[in-house]
């Protein structure tokens, strides 16, 4: 019993450290890649190729003055970045990044918790992520923040629907809600080949769920200054961004797990295959951000409710017909 708890704690710790490092280096790679796409150089000064830039940024943000604006709702103001980060990190408890390996005789599964309704749990937690945004916007006593928070709520709730429906087709095909079961069901063919429409819908909603361009309305710098994090500074501000990057990694890993066969691949290289499959998604997020302009708010709602939801429903009905009948 004790050893089980220890193993889980160690796995979680390693996961958190990995994710924090990955988020830090995603900021670096985003800056470099976006700079190259705009014919700039990006960070090159701190360390070789600017590789120490995330550390420098972290030190700068940690040593900043701690301030809070007047008239805020104190508890929620301080809690909101934590909620964002927690919900982002939590998804990785459920995602299998590999099968079972043996270290010093112990069988260790490379998945922190194999919940039998894992995908449902993930959907629930990605819905909770909206609380970080909306509470930050509401508690900081600023109209821009409030508008950003409200936009975030509307956007995340309306994109949750097509996302859930598109994931349902995968569940139908796999016949299980457990993520390791879904990965196992893709041992012979990936679900992206049988459910391409679900994959595309999932990808589009993933952009909206993570508040990334072209769906970055909650933080629209041009209209809302910074949206829900206008009144945040220092490490509290950084937490929102760490959460955003971890969210990007999370939705990419969910996409890999559901559509691209998870950690399975030729030869037995569990974690490596998983990482290799995530990378193109991360690149896609950066690539799209440096290309696309932000959607108008009305367009955003139109796409969500009038385009994606009907297509997802029709897709689900057709898939259900072919799977069950």
């Amino acid at each position, binding site marked *: 019993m004790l050893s089980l708890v220890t193993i889980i704690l160690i796995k979680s710790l390693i996961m958190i450290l990995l994710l924090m490092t990955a988020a830090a280096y995603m900021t670096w790679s985003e800056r470099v890649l976006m700079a190259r796409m705009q*014919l700039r150089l990006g960070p090159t000064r701190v360390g070789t190729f600017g590789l120490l830039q995330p550390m420098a940024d972290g030190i700068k943000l940690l040593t900043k003055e701690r301030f809070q604006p007047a008239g805020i709702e104190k508890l929620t103001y301080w809690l909101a970045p934590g909620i964002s980060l927690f919900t982002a990190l939590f998804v990785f408890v459920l995602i299998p990044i590999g099968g079972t390996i043996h270290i010093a005789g112990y069988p260790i599964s490379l998945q922190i918790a194999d919940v039998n309704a894992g995908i449902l749990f993930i959907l629930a937690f990605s819905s909770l992520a909206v609380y970080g945004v909306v509470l930050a916007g509401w508690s900081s006593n600023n109209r821009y923040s409030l508008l950003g928070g409200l936009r975030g709520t509307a956007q995340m709730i309306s994109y949750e629907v097509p996302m859930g429906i598109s994931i349902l087709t995968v569940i139908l095909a796999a016949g299980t809600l457990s993520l390791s079961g879904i990965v196992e069901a893709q041992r012979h063919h990936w679900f992206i080949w049988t459910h391409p429409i679900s994959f595309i819908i999932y990808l589009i909603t993933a952009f909206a769920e993570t508040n990334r361009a072209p769906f970055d309305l909650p933080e629209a710098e041009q209209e809302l200054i910074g949206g829900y994090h206008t009144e945040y500074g220092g490490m509290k501000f950084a937490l929102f961004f760490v959460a955003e990057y971890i969210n990007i990694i999370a939705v990419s890993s969910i996409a890999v797990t559901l559509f691209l066969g998870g950690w399975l691949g030729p030869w037995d290289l569990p974690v490596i295959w998983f990482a290799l499959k995530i990378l193109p998604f991360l690149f896609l997020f950066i690539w799209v951000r440096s290309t696309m302009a932000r959607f108008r708010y009305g367009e955003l709602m139109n796409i969500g409710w009038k385009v994606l939801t009907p297509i997802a429903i029709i897709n689900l009905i057709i898939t259900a017909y072919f799977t069950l009948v």
Partner: protein
Amino acid sequence: MRKTLSKILSMMQGLFIVLKHAFRRPITLRYPEEKRELPVRSRGRHYLTKWEDGLERCVGCELCAIVCPSQAIYVKPAENEPGDVHSHGERYASDFQINMLRCIYCGYCEEACPTGAIILSNEYELSSYTREALIFTKEQLTEKNPGDSGRDPSREI
């Protein structure tokens, strides 16, 4: 339907245009290490040039000070005494100051000068910690040896 399709297509096209640019060479210059090669006729800081024989070109006519739209130039002329000859004319500039904070680098002084004494070089790195240091004196402005400023010392004007 066709409109939507063309919209999606143009989005894809945009993505690939951006990707194409990722493989081009960045145009950024790492400034203190790499410096931009300015065009020859671009206007930077001033120089007071000399003739080939080492005498100053400036004859103290004050035309540059008169034409200067921002009144940045101060010239104090003096007579060339026998045994103390500075220029080929009757007079020379015993003091010559340019306030680089006032100067707008229009180049009118260069055009007005009848002897081609004052020229604008390509040097553009003119910063200092004090205002006083940016009022250039005659010693700072005059080139040490004929041709130091980059202009041919044997030219007519």
